[in-house]
C-alpha cells in the first residue's frame, strides 16, 4: 500500500512539474511571438525558437550560420521582469563582432555577411546584487533574414 501511495505521489509530482514547465514555456513562446517577432520586420523570421527561462547569473548561447551576401537582424528580447541583459555576437575565433551591455542596451544588431561563417550569440543575465528576490524570465534570441 505504501509503495502504491509513493508511486502515485511521485507520478503526481512529475505530472505537475511537466505541466508547469509546459505552461511556463508556452508563456515564453507567446511572449516571443507577440512582443519580439514583430520587431524583426522588415526581416523575415528564420523560424527557429530559441528561448529559455533564465535567472540572474545564468547564460545562454545560440550557434548560428550566416550565409555570404545575406542580410540579417539578430535580436535578443527579454521579459521585463528580468530587466536588461548583456549579450554579444562572436565569430568562430571568439572575437566580438557586436556587444550590448545592460547599462546601455541595444536589442538588435543588423549585419550583412561578407562571407559564410559560423557565429555565436551569448547572453548572460547580470547577477541580482544584494536582493534576495530571484526573478526568472524569458529570454528569446531571434534571427531574421532578408529574402
Amino acid at each position, binding site marked *: 500500500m505504501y509503495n502504491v501511495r509513493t508511486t502515485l505521489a511521485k507520478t503526481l509530482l512529475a505530472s505537475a512539474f511537466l505541466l508547469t514547465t509546459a505552461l511556463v514555456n508556452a508563456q515564453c513562446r507567446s511572449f516571443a511571438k507577440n512582443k519580439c517577432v514583430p520587431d524583426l520586420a522588415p526581416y523575415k523570421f528564420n523560424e527557429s*525558437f530559441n528561448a529559455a527561462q533564465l535567472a540572474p547569473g545564468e547564460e545562454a548561447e545560440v550557434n548560428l550560420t550566416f550565409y555570404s551576401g545575406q542580410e540579417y537582424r539578430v535580436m535578443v528580447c527579454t521579459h521585463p521582469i528580468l530587466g536588461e541583459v548583456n549579450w554579444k555576437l562572436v565569430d568562430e575565433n571568439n572575437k566580438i563582432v557586436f556587444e550590448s551591455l545592460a547599462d546601455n542596451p541595444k536589442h538588435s544588431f543588423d549585419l*550583412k555577411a561578407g*562571407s559564410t561563417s559560423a557565429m555565436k550569440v551569448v547572453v548572460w543575465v547580470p547577477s541580482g546584487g544584494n536582493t534576495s528576490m530571484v526573478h526568472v524570465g524569458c529570454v528569446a534570441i531571434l534571427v531574421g533574414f532578408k529574402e
Partner: protein
Amino acid sequence: MTTLQMKNLSLTLVLATCLAACGNEPPPQDKLTLENGVDSAIQAERMKKTKSIFYNIPSPMETAGLLKKAGAKYNKTILNDVKNVDKYTSAGQQALNLGIYGADLSYTSVFNHTQESMFYTSCSRKLADRLGVISAFNDSTLELMQSNLNDRDALLDIVSETYWNVDAYLKENGRDNISALMIAGGWVEGLYIATQISKINDTPELRQRIAEQRISLNDLSNLINSYELEDARLTSVKADIASLQAIFAEVASGAPGTATSEENGVPVIGTGGTAATLTDAQLIKIRDRTAEIRTTYIN
C-alpha cells in the same frame, strides 16, 4: 444559396480535395515512442546540459530562399510524394517526414507553386496531428492559406509561423527528440533538393551553397548528439549524419573573412574571405549519400 454559403462550400471542397490528395485514412499506428515514458532523471540531466545551448539549423524556408537566389529551378518531381503520408506509422518516421514535407512545403511556397503548397500543408498537418501537435495546425491554417493563395508574402509568413509553432510546441512539451528528428528530416530534404537540382542546373553559386552545408551539418550533429536517449531512430540518424560529415570533411570549406566594411549603413562582417567549393566527385558523393539516406526516411 447565398454568396457566403457558396464561398464556404467551395472552401470546404478545396480543403477536402487537399486532404484527399494527401493519402487516405492512415493504417493502424505503431506504438508512439514519445518522451513521456523517459526516466525523469535522464531527462532532467539532459535539460540541465542543453538548457542554455541552442543550435540554430537554417530553416527550410531560409534554405529554399538560398537555393532560389543561387539560381535553382523548380522541379516538383524530386519532392516526396504526398501519397506516402499514410506509410508513416511510427513517431520517428512521422517526425522525420514532417520535416521532409515541411521542407517540400517551403520549396513549393518560395517558388510560388501554391497548389502544391496546399497539398504539402495537408500532409504536414496529417503528420502533426498523428504526433499530437494539435494546436500548431488547425483548420484555420488551411483556410488562411487558401485565402492568401495569391499573396506570396502572406503565404510564406503563414508557412513560417506554422513551422515555428510545431517546433516550439514540441520543445515546450518535453519532446525535443521529436523536434530534432523533424529538423533533421527537413535539413536532409533541403540538401537532397539542392543536390538533385544540381544535376540539371549546376551553377557555381549552388555548389557553394551545398559545400557550405558543412557548417550547419556540424550544428545538426551537435543537436542530435545532445540526446543520450535509447532511441533507435535517433541512433540511426546520428549514423547518417556522421556518414555525411565524413564526406563533407573532404570539401574545401573556404575561410570567413576578417575585415569589416559598410554598405548602406549596414556593417558587412567578414569581407575578404574565400568561398567553399565542391569538385565534381565530391558533389556526386554528397548527392548519392543524401539520396540513400532520404530513401530510408521516406519509405
